[in-house]
C-alpha cells in the first residue's frame, strides 16, 4: 500500500527480485561458457554470414550481370532487402524512444535488445544500397567532399541523397543512444568481474562511471533529449525511404500515402521481429522473469494495431487507384492482385492482415510457441510487401512492349541469406558479451522494498520524502 502510494507507476511487472538478484540474473550469462542452445543458433548464423560474404565477393568481382535484373526491373532484390531491414530497425527505436517518452515502463526489459536489433538491422540495410551501386568502391562519391572533378557536388534535390543522410544519421544516433544507455550497466558488469582482460574491457567502455548522482541526472537529461530527437528521426527515415519511390513517376510508387504507409509498415515488421527475438532470448538466456507474459501480451496487441494500419493502407491504395480515374494506376493495382505476381501479393496480405488477427485471442497470446510462429509469418509478409511494391510496380509499366518479368538468381538469394546471417550473428554476439537487459532501468522500475511498517511512520505517506522536504 505504502509502496503503491510512493511510486504509482510501479506495477508488478517483475516481482520478487532484489536489486542484487537483478544484477546477478542479467550478468551471470556473460560469465560462464555459452550454452549449447547459443551455439546451435550461432554456428548456422555464422555459416549464413560466410555464404553471404562469398556471394557478395563473387558479385562484386564478376559484376552486376550476376543479378536477375533487366532494363524494366532495375530495382528488385537489393532494394527490397534494404527497405525490409530498415523497417525492422524502426521498432527498436519505437520501443526505446517513443515508448520512453510515453513513460511506458514495461519497455525496460526489452529496450536494450530492441535497440541492438535496430543497430544490426540498419547495418544490414546499409549494405544493400552499397552493393546495389555495382561499383561499391566508389561509394564515397555520395559524400559531399571537395573533389578534383570541379568540385562537382552531389545533387541535394535527389531523394537518394536524402536517404544517404537519413540512414547515416539514423545509424549514428541509434548507436549513440544504445551506447549511452549501456554505460551504467557496463560499470555494473565491471564491478562484479574479477581482474583480467574482460574487466579491462569493461573498464574502458564504462568510461569510469561510478554511479554519482550528479552524473545520473545529466545522463537522464541526455537520454530524454536523445529520445526526443530519435522520435522524429525514425519517422523521417522511413518517410525519406518512401520518397525514393514516391518522387518517381512509376504508377504504384507515385503516391502521397507512401510516407505514413511505410512508417506504419516499418513499425509493424519491427514489432514482429522484436517479439521473435525476445522469445528466442527469453528461452536461450533464461530471462523468463524479465520478459514476462505481460510483455508478450502488450507486444501482440501492438502488432494487431499496426497490422490494422497496414491493412487500411492496402485498402486505401486500391481505393485511390480506383478513384483516380487514371488507367495506368488502376492497371497496376489490378495487375498486383490478379497478374503474374499475384502470389506475392496474396502472400503479403495473408501474412500481414490475416495472421495477426489470431492475436485477438488471449489463448493465442499465452502460447508462446504459437506467438513465435505467427511473428515469423509477419516477418515473411513484410518482406513480401517490399517485394510487391518494388517488383510488381516495375514489371508492367506504361509501355506493354517493355513489360518484363523477374526472378532472383542464386547469388541474390545468397546475399539475402547472408544479411540474415549477419543480423543473427551480431545479435547472438551481443547476447553473449553485453547485458541484454537494461539493468539500471529495471532496477529503477522495481525499486527497493518498502520500509517495514515500524519504520513507515517516519515517512509522510503519499509524498516522496524529497518533495516533503521542498515544502519547507
Amino acid at each position, binding site marked *: 500500500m505504502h509502496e503503491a502510494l510512493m511510486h504509482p507507476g510501479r506495477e508488478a511487472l517483475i516481482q520478487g527480485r532484489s536489486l542484487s538478484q537483478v*544484477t546477478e540474473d542479467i550478468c551471470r550469462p556473460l560469465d560462464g561458457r555459452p550454452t549449447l542452445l547459443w551455439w546451435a543458433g550461432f554456428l548456422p548464423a555464422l555459416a549464413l554470414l560466410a555464404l553471404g560474404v562469398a556471394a557478395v565477393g563473387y558479385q562484386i568481382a564478376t559484376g552486376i550481370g550476376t543479378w536477375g535484373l533487366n532494363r524494366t526491373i532495375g530495382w528488385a532484390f537489393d532494394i527490397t532487402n534494404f527497405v525490409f531491414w530498415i523497417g525492422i530497425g524502426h521498432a527498436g527505436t519505437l520501443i526505446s524512444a517513443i515508448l520512453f517518452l510515453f513513460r511506458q515502463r514495461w519497455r525496460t526489459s526489452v529496450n536494450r535488445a530492441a535497440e541492438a536489433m535496430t543497430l544490426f538491422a540498419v547495418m544490414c540495410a546499409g549494405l544493400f544500397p552499397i552493393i546495389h551501386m555495382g561499383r561499391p568502391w566508389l561509394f564515397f562519391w555520395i559524400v*559531399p567532399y571537395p573533389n578534383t572533378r570541379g568540385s562537382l557536388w552531389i545533387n541535394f534535390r535527389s531523394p537518394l541523397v536524402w536517404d544517404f543522410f537519413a540512414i547515416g544519421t539514423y545509424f549514428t544516433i541509434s548507436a*549513440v543512444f544504445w551506447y549511452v544507455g549501456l554505460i551504467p550497466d557496463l560499470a555494473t558488469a565491471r*564491478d562484479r568481474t574479477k581482474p583480467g582482460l574482460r574487466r579491462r574491457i569493461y573498464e574502458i567502455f564504462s568510461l569510469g562511471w*561510478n554511479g554519482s*548522482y550528479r552524473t545520473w541526472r545529466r545522463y537522464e537529461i541526455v537520454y530524454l533529449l536523445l529520445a526526443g*530527437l530519435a522520435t522524429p528521426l525514425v519517422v523521417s527515415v522511413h518517410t525519406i525511404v518512401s520518397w525514393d519511390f514516391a518522387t518517381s513517376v512509376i504508377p504504384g510508387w507515385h503516391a502521397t500515402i507512401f510516407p505514413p504507409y511505410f512508417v506504419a509498415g516499418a513499425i509493424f515488421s519491427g514489432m514482429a521481429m522484436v517479439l521473435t527475438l525476445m522469445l528466442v532470448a527469453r528461452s536461450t538466456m533464461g530471462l523468463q522473469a524479465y520478459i514476462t507474459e505481460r510483455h508478450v501480451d502488450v507486444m501482440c496487441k501492438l502488432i494487431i494495431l499496426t497490422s490494422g494500419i497496414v491493412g487500411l493502407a492496402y485498402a486505401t491504395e486500391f481505393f485511390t487507384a480506383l478513384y483516380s480515374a487514371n488507367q495506368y494506376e488502376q492497371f497496376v493495382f489490378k495487375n498486383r492482385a490478379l497478374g503474374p505476381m499475384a502470389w506475392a501479393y496474396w502472400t503479403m496480405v495473408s501474412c500481414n492482415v490475416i495472421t495477426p488477427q489470431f492475436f485477438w485471442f488471449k489463448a493465442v497470446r499465452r502460447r508462446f510457441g504459437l506467438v513465435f510462429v505467427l511473428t515469423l509469418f509477419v516477418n515473411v509478409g513484410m518482406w513480401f510487401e517490399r517485394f510487391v511494391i518494388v517488383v510488381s510496380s516495375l514489371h508492367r509499366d506504361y509501355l506493354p512492349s517493355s513489360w518484363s518479368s523477374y526472378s532472383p538468381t542464386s547469388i541474390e538469394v545468397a546475399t539475402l541469406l547472408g544479411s540474415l546471417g549477419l543480423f543473427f550473428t551480431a545479435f547472438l554476439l551481443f547476447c553473449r558479451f553485453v547485458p541484454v537487459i537494461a539493468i539500471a532501468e529495471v532496477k529503477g522500475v522495481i525499486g*527497493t522494498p518498502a520500509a517495514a511498517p515500524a519504520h513507515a511512520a517516519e515517512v509522510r505517506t503519499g509524498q516522496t520524502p524529497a518533495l516533503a522536504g521542498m515544502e519547507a
Partner: protein
Amino acid sequence: MARRTMIGVFSREEDILTATDAARRDGLTILDVYTPYAVHGLDQAMALQPSRLPWVCFLLGLLGAVLKVWFEYWTTAVSWPINVGGKPWNSLPAFVPVTFEVMVLFAGVSTVFAFLLVAKLRPWRKAAVIHPRVTDDRFVLLLEQTDASFDVGRVRRLLERHHAVEVEERDLQEVP
C-alpha cells in the same frame, strides 16, 4: 589536499532520499550521492540546479541546421549551379530533409559529447568507486567534514536514524 569525509551506506531507495534530505536541511555539505540507478527525487533532496545540457542540444542543433542550409545553397546555387529538371538553383523545399537529418545528428552527438565532458567520463579513466556495491544495490551519501563544527557523533546518529547500514569516515584525495 585530502578532504575528510563521512560516508553513509544505505540499502533502500527511500532511506537515501530521506537521509539526503535531512542532511541538506541540517546544513551539511553533500559532496555527492552514489546510486545503482537514477533515483527520482534525489535532485530535489540535493537541491541541484537544472542541467544546461538542453541548451547545448538546442544551439548545436540550430548550428547544424544553419550550416547545412548554407552549404546546400552554396553548392547548388553558387559553387557549381546545375540545372536539375528546371528547378530553381536555390530549391529550399528540397533542402529540408537533409537539413533535418544534419540538425538531429549535430544535436544528438554534441549533447552526448557535452555530457561526457561535463561528467568527466572518458575511456581509460579509473572509476573511483566509493563502495564496491554501489553499481549493484547500495546507495551512498558522501558528506564533507567542512570544519570543526562538524559533529561526527551527531551526523552518525542522523545517518543511522535513516537506517544506514554502514557509516564510515574516510579521507579522499579528490571527490570522484
